[in-house]
């Protein structure tokens, strides 16, 4: 690198989404960084137990990084932990699997490397914080995160007007059918074949999760929470075309 004098060093902070083994003791770490967006970088020697990186480059960790731009992959030269969101998850299997589904979704919703996605980054930080603080049911934290990250990516489900014709819900027009492919709720006229007919309370919960209305969400009934996560997962899988593998492994407490 030094011979051409073009070493470019930059600093950013981000959440570690995943890491792959590379060679003898290195890892390729995928991060969602505040300014840079999703970036893949090499951490040298990180798998050795005496590595100076320690647990700082484990999935879920919010790290402050110093990197240099490499020819194919960037290289991490320094890492300092800002907050180890993984710590409270390792000993709690349902929360660990829930968190993993959030990381995979964040990766999938930022398909272009090094394209800044500050809102996705902030949503993920918020979601991981909520998951670790255990204030809300992990199922609700996951669904809120999935719905809001889909919305940021431009795939918010239509909940207040018909997804097909745009008619707003009022006393005369009831939106009862939820069509995954249609993009959310539809009026009777636009109802897609195979559309679900969720309970109105389930739709209200979905709306509350999208808006961040935790008072409503925390007080919701279990059966509506279960229906909401079923719809959310189906909606997410359909809009991402490829499935989020971790979702299958999410265990509910």
């Amino acid at each position, binding site marked *: 690198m030094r011979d051409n004098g073009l070493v470019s060093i930059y600093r950013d902070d981000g959440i570690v989404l995943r890491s792959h083994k590379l060679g003898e003791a290195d890892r390729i770490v995928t991060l969602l960084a505040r300014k840079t967006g999703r970036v893949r970088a090499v951490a040298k020697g990180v798998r050795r137990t005496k*590595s100076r990186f*320690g647990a700082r480059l484990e999935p879920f960790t919010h790290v402050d990084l110093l990197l240099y731009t490499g020819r194919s992959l960037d290289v991490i030269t320094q890492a300092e932990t800002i907050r180890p969101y993984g710590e409270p998850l*390792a000993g*709690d299997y349902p929360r660990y699997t829930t968190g993993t589904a959030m990381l995979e979704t964040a990766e999938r919703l930022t398909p272009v490397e090094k394209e800044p996605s500050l809102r996705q980054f902030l949503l993920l930080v918020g979601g991981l914080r909520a998951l670790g603080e255990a204030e809300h049911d992990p199922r609700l934290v996951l669904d809120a995160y999935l719905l809001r990250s889909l919305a940021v990516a431009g795939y918010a489900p239509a909940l207040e007007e018909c997804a097909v014709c745009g008619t707003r819900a009022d006393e005369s027009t009831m939106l009862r059918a939820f069509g995954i492919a249609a993009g959310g709720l539809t009026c009777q006229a636009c109802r897609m074949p195979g559309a679900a007919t969720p309970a109105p309370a389930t739709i209200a919960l979905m709306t509350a999760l999208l808006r961040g209305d935790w008072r409503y969400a925390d007080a919701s009934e279990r059966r509506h929470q279960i229906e909401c996560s079923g719809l959310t997962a189906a909606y997410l899988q359909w809009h991402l075309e490829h499935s989020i593998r971790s979702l299958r492994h999410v265990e509910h407490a």
Partner: protein
Amino acid sequence: MYEGIVQDLIEELGQLPGVGPKGAQRIAFHLLAADPADVKRLAAVLQEVTEKVKFCRTCGNVAEADECRICADARRDPSVICVVEEPKDVAAVEKIREYRGRYHVLGGAISPIDGIGPDELRIRELMARLADGTVTELILATDPNLEGEATATYLARLVKPLGIRVTRPASGLPVGGELEYADEVTLGRAFEGRRQLDV
């Protein structure tokens, strides 16, 4: 691109873990320049390994017979099983020369983002080994990183109803690393100071 057989060699080498296209090329040309006798010896070992080495039907470790040499050794304590991720971790624990129990190799750690859940690991086989009451202690020596911890958490909870003492090698093992890279002294201390896992 190189011609025919040389290109084939580069492509085969490139399939190996941790070997990129450049590395494959380097190894290929190293082999071409090496003493043919040395290369033939390597080829013979590769051939032998594919014919003779399999996985132990009991613990999943590498073995030259149906059972590995540890499972076949009557002097090894059958009341303790040490659970590890990979066969190379068995070698790492054996290096400390203090552990006299048996092993169970999971074949990895739970990693949902890579599509690996409990069903993809040798967990059912482990539960079958615990069924007859011989085993009184299970040492969960998965890697000291997040996936290893989560796997240990999952197993501890699964085994809990059986009333078996479940422990995890403790302090000394820096987090974020892999078992196979720990030195013998550190690993020995971690085993000695293993603590009971409560879930």
